[in-house]
């Protein structure tokens, strides 16, 4: 088979790349130039590639992976293999020259069973393979080379080693550590254990039989045990019954002694005892009662002697009644005395406070009529008002005096200021002279007018003056009348004043009118006048006016002085009236002093208060005197009682002190004593009566019991109490015997029921005899008991064992485990068997293969090796039996492969590879592909290799990839393709 051309549609770096192959072709390219890619493309075309690996070669530019390889086959001629990644999942289609299409299987047929792997191991080799060789261990080298000789690869040897290791790991016939050996150990152990368990389980049958034997035996023993126990019980009962039997016999014979004629009342003795016990206390009680009667009588006599006569007693009682009265009076007296003292003290205190020179004794005669209080108040009030009036008037008079002095002083002043009349006249002349000229006319008119007005005014004035006069007179009259009637002085004064006023004003008015008339009539007489200057006039006018003014003021003051005098006269009158009243009042006071001299010590203004104090004192004094009287009465009463009591005591001749209290106490205790004695006497006579009654009753009861006692004696047929008791004892004894016999019978019956004891009475065994039997039986029982417990223990042991066996899981578990371990062993054994078989198969195949091909391969190898080494070595010998791989040098000396240099081994390797390729290709002409296999060869060797290759290429296509230009350039017969050039 030959490759003629290839078209790479897309594969790795190659896209749309064409290449044609001649019989021998050297493809040169530097590293990374894509040599290997072409190599892999060829492999891909021939054997296909799984998708994943295919994907590795997808061109970087994208696009299809795939291409075509045209092949020339010896049988079918030329055909083209086409594989495309996208079509049929990379499966091949082959186109033959006759236009037929074939599938992958057809292609495989053409490849004659060569697979990728076998192809690679036989028809292609690379520098890498050489590297492997050099890494081999020396000792194995021969084997490895043989393997290469056989298969072209180093795998056989490696595999053999591996299989050996695995076998050793799994099993060694006499080993300990391998897995199967260990598993066997486990199994043996388990098996032994199982056997033991099995043996143990086998005892189950024995144990079951044993168990039933033991059960039988136990049953038998227990029966015997029960029997013996019964015997023992019987003997024990007999022993127990022995004393009882003796008693029985004794009682029986005893009973025979008593006759049958023993009459005796039922419970006779107790009944007698009862009667006696009842009788005895009665009798003793009787004796006591009698003794008491004597005692009581004696006592009575004594008491009666003590008792005094009745009269004395009654007198004492009346006296004692006075006792309370006496004490009450005494208390009353004390209280009265206290009261008197306190009252007296109180009054004396009051008198001192008043301090009016009154003594306590004076109070006896003191008396106040009903009106005295009012009189005293009246005097007090009048005196006060008169005094006040007096003072007021004096003050007024004083004031008026001062006013008058003042007015006189002023008048003197004014008189000094006044101008002399001549001067005034002179001045007036001046003025009038001046005015006369100017004013005559008007003055005349005016005077006329004035006269007219004056006349009118005068009428009016007269009228009013008259009116005031009349009205003042009237009012003055009225007031004086009222004053006289009511006796009010100041009204009289007012009326007097009014009168003065009315007359005064009328007279004053009159005078005025007359003056005015003079004035008015004088006016128009001023005709004569001198002419004077204006300034003089003015000055004169001022002087005149001043003068006029002083005159007027003087007039006024004079008026005032007049009125002042009038006023003073009035007050003097008033003063006289007041003095009169005062005198009257003083008279009244003097009268009072005479009647109540103590008033002298007191100012009239305090008289009303004094009256109240005095009145209270008087009433208190009255109370005081009453109490004094009461006291006297009480003292009389007390003395009376005292004398009466004293009299009584004197009569009785009691030697007690004179004190009334002691005497009264003595009387009282006398009465108490007497009373007590009489009570006791009564008590004792009562006791005596009761005693008598009781004695009668007792006697009756004693008789009843006596009668009963005699009835008992009759029944027992005896005459005395002594005999009665003797008979009673006999009866008791017989009864005891009977009871004891009965009791014994019951006890015996209890031990031996249904009268079984009766024969024993006639046939009594001795105690020692019975004791001996009992001991024997007890021993028997003990022995049996021991046997039973032993058997039980044994049975329990067996049963426990059986139970343990029955519940034991050990055997079962072991069984299952053993089964599993066995399974594990079988699994391991099978693994071992497979590996063992594989190894045997490998060895066998190797042997056969050697037989078949080794000779041929060695021939070829020798040939190539000879040429490669330049005839240095003649022959190569495959290992036979114990002889290892050897080469023979041209001098006939043989060397072991591990004695060769590394270069020589490389040459040997290449020779082997070429030889095997050549041998194999005789039946299967697949082209050789070498990928830089001779990288480390020197130029001499390269030439030799090239020679060989060129030779080979004549009948076997060789494709050589190299990066060594030396090789490429040395190729003479072989076509060389320069990938670099292509690329450039």
């Amino acid at each position, binding site marked *: 088979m030959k490759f003629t051309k290839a078209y790479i549609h897309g594969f790795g770096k190659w896209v749309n790349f064409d290449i044609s192959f001649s019989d021998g072709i050297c493809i040169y390219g530097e590293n990374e130039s894509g040599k290997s890619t072409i190599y892999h493309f060829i492999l891909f075309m021939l054997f296909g590639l799984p998708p994943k690996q295919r994907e590795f070669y997808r061109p970087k530019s994208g696009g299809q992976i795939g291409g075509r390889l045209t092949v020339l086959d010896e049988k079918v001629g030329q055909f083209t293999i086409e594989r495309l990644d996208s079509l049929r999942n990379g499966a091949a289609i082959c186109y033959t020259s006759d236009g037929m299409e074939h599938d992958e299987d057809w292609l495989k047929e053409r490849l*004659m*069973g*060569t*697979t990728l*792997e*076998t192809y690679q*191991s*036989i028809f292609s080799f690379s520098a890498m393979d050489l590297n492997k060789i050099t890494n081999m261990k020396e000792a194995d080298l021969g084997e490895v080379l043989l393997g290469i000789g*056989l*298969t*072209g*690869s180093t*795998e056989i040897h490696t*595999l053999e080693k591996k299989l050996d290791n695995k076998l050793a790991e799994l*099993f060694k*016939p006499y080993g300990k550590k391998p897995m*199967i050996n260990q598993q*066997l150990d486990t199994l*043996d152990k388990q*098996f032994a254990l199982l056997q033991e368990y099995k043996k143990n*389980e*086998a005892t*189950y*049958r024995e144990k079951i039989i044993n168990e039933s034997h033991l059960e039988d035996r136990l049953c038998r023993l227990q029966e015997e045990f029960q029997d013996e126990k019964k015997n023992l019980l019987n003997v024990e009962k007999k022993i127990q019954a022995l004393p009882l039997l003796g008693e029985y016999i004794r009682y029986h014979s005893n009973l025979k002694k008593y006759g049958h004629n023993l009459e005796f009342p039922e419970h006779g003795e107790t009944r007698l005892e009862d009667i006696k016990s009842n009788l005895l206390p009665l009798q003793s009680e009787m004796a006591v009662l009698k003794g008491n009667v004597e005692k009581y009588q004696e006592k009575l006599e004594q008491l009666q002697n003590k008792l005094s006569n009745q009269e004395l007693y009654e007198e004492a009682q009346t006296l004692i009644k006075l006792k309370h009265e006496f004490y009450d009076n005494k208390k009353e007296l004390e209280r009265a005395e206290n009261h008197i003292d306190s009252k007296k003290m109180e009054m004396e205190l009051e008198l001192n406070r008043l301090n009016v020179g009154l003594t306590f004794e004076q109070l006896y005669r003191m008396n106040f009529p009903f009106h005295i209080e009012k009189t005293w108040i009246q005097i007090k009030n009048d005196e006060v008002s008169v005094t006040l009036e007096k003072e007021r008037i004096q003050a007024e008079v004083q004031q008026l005096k001062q006013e008058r002095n003042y007015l006189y002083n002023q008048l003197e002043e004014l008189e000094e200021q006044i101008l002399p009349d001549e001067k005034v006249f002179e001045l007036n002349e001046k003025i009038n002279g001046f005015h006369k000229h100017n004013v005559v006319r008007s003055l005349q008119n005016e005077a006329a007018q004035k006269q007219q007005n004056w006349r009118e005014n005068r009428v009016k004035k007269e009228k009013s003056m008259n009116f005031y006069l009349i009205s003042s007179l009237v009012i003055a009259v009225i007031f004086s009348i009222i004053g006289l009637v009511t006796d009010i002085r100041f009204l009289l004064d007012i009326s007097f004043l009014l009168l003065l006023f009315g007359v005064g004003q009328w007279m004053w008015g009159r005078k005025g009118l007359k003056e005015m008339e003079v004035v008015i009539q004088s006016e128009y007489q001023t005709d004569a006048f001198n002419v004077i200057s204006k300034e003089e006039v003015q000055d004169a006018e001022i002087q005149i006016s001043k003068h006029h003014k002083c005159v007027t003021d003087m007039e006024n003051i004079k008026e005032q002085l007049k009125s002042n005098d009038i006023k003073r006269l009035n007050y003097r009158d008033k003063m006289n009236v007041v003095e009169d009243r005062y005198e009257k009042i003083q008279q009244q006071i003097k009268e009072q002093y005479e009647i109540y001299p103590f008033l002298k010590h007191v100012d009239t203004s305090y008289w009303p208060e004094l009256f109240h104090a005095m009145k209270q004192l008087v009433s208190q004094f009255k109370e005081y005197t009453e109490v004094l009287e009461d006291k006297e009465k009480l003292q009389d009463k007390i003395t009376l009682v005292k004398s009466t009591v004293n009299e009584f005591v004197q009569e009785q001749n009691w030697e007690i002190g004179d004190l009334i209290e002691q005497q009264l106490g003595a009387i009282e205790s006398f009465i108490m004593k007497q009373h007590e004695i009489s009570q006791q006497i009564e008590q004792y006579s009562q006791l005596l009566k009761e005693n008598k009654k009781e004695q009668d009753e007792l006697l009756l009861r004693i008789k009843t019991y006596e009668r009963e006692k005699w009835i008992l004696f009759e029944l027992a047929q005896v005459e005395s109490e002594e005999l009665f008791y003797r008979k009673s004892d006999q009866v008791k004894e017989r009864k005891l015997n009977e009871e004891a016999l009965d009791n014994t019978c019951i006890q015996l019956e209890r031990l031996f029921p249904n009268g079984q004891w009766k024969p024993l009475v006639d046939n009594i065994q001795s105690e020692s005899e019975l004791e001996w039997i009992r001991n024997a039986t007890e021993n028997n029982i003990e022995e049996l008991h021991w046997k039973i417990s032993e058997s039980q223990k044994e049975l329990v042991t067996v049963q426990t064992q059986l139970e343990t*066996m*029955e*519940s*034991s899981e050990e*055997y*079962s*578990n072991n*069984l*299952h*485990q*053993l*089964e*599993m371990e066995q*399974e594990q*062993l*079988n*699994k391991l*054994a*099978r693994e*071992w*068997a*497979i*590996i*063992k*078989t*594989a190894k*045997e*198969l*490998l060895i*066998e*195949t190797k042997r*056969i*293969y050697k037989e*078949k*091909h080794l000779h041929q391969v060695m021939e070829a190898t020798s040939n190539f090796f000879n040429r490669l080494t330049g005839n240095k070595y003649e022959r190569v010998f495959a290992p036979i039996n114990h002889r290892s791989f050897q080469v023979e040098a041209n001098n006939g000396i043989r060397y072991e492969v591990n004695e060769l240099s590394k270069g020589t081994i490389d040459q040997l390797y290449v020779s082997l590879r070429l030889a095997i390729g050549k041998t*194999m290709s005789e039946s299967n002409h697949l082209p050789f592909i070498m990928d830089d296999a001779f990288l480390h060869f020197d130029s001499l060797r390269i030439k030799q290799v090239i020679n060989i290759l060129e030779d080979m290429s004549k009948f076997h296509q060789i494709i050589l990839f190299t990066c060594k230009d030396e090789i490429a350039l040395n190729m003479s017969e072989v076509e060389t393709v320069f990938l670099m050039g292509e690329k450039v």
Partner: protein
Amino acid sequence: MQEISFIHAADLHLDSPFKGLAHTPDHIFQEIVESTFLSLDKLVAIAIKKAVDFVLIVGDLFDNEKQSLKAQIRLRKAFEELKRHNIEVYLSYGNHDFLNGNLHPVTYPDNVHIFGKETVSHFTYKKGNETLANIYGFSYENRAVTDRKVKEFKVINHDIPFHIATLHGSIQNNTEHDVYAPFQLSELQKEPFDYWGLGHIHKREVLKENPPIVYPGNIQGRNRKETGQKGCYHVVLSGTDSRLTFIPLHTITFQPVQVDLSNCENLHQAEDLIQEAINNDREITGKTLIDLTLTGDSTLKQWENTKQIEDLIEIINEMISRDGQWKYIFHFLTNIKKEKIDVDLKKGEHFLGEVIRQAEKMDLQGTIQDLYLHKRARRYLQSVSSQDRHEIKEEAKELLLNELLK
């Protein structure tokens, strides 16, 4: 109309170890050990619940070869429980628990009626005063009964309403099992029996409906061939009618699971696929021992060779065997799609071709005798069948090819 009801079971194989389990976690191991007993307890419970008249157990209650006292004690307890509920038991011994091989003299309570001889005999079942059924059967006295016992079965006293035959044996032409007490179906139908209760075959099968001829199968699967539900039949017979109900008693099931890993590129995917297959398998309910078959290509082969599959299964087992209703892959098998590689290689002149050719010629006998005839190992190892030999050879060949083609 009269009616009887009973439970028909056979092949209890109490306490007999499971086959083909090399290793299990402790808790699963304990459950395996207890499984047959639990199934027996369930049988008792069902009998009581259904208030049946009696229970038929047709042979192989336990294994004499690996006889454990525990098996018989537990059996006794079960019978005692049935007695408490007035349920009778009719039982015969088969080829595994034959009479002469029994070591342990365990006495069963008196409600248990045992066919004690190898000749066919019968017991009469009475309900109150009423005689209701005759039950016929025989026991194996020795390991094998090769006589045609079927001929001995004759109906006695036709007045009794029901006649039930029990037989531990197999159909004559059965090739899978050892043939004991052979019979043909037609022979069973000759006599007018109302029910044929069979034993010996572990796979449940109703051979005939009228009258019913029934293999109830065993009550608990014990190896990877005994898959699925296992149990007994609850049978109600009336004059005209027979009603059969299968009642599962198994505690643990054996279940095959197939997973195709052809499209898997890595172990993670494989793990997911296996998990998925286990989780989605409707047959898998309750405690299950899984027999896993993996299908795949060279990748799978690769994983197998490097023991990665084994590790993977261990990981999966760790996950699925924990909870109460555990699952456990106890066995796996790889099924590699054969590429034509062998065929191609065989033609080649090269070494691999020679390997294949040699493998075909090879005789295994001498090769493996080192171990298989080893003094200590021999007694524990199963004999290697021709099938085994073939498999070993194939695997050895594949091993070599895989290694050499690496």
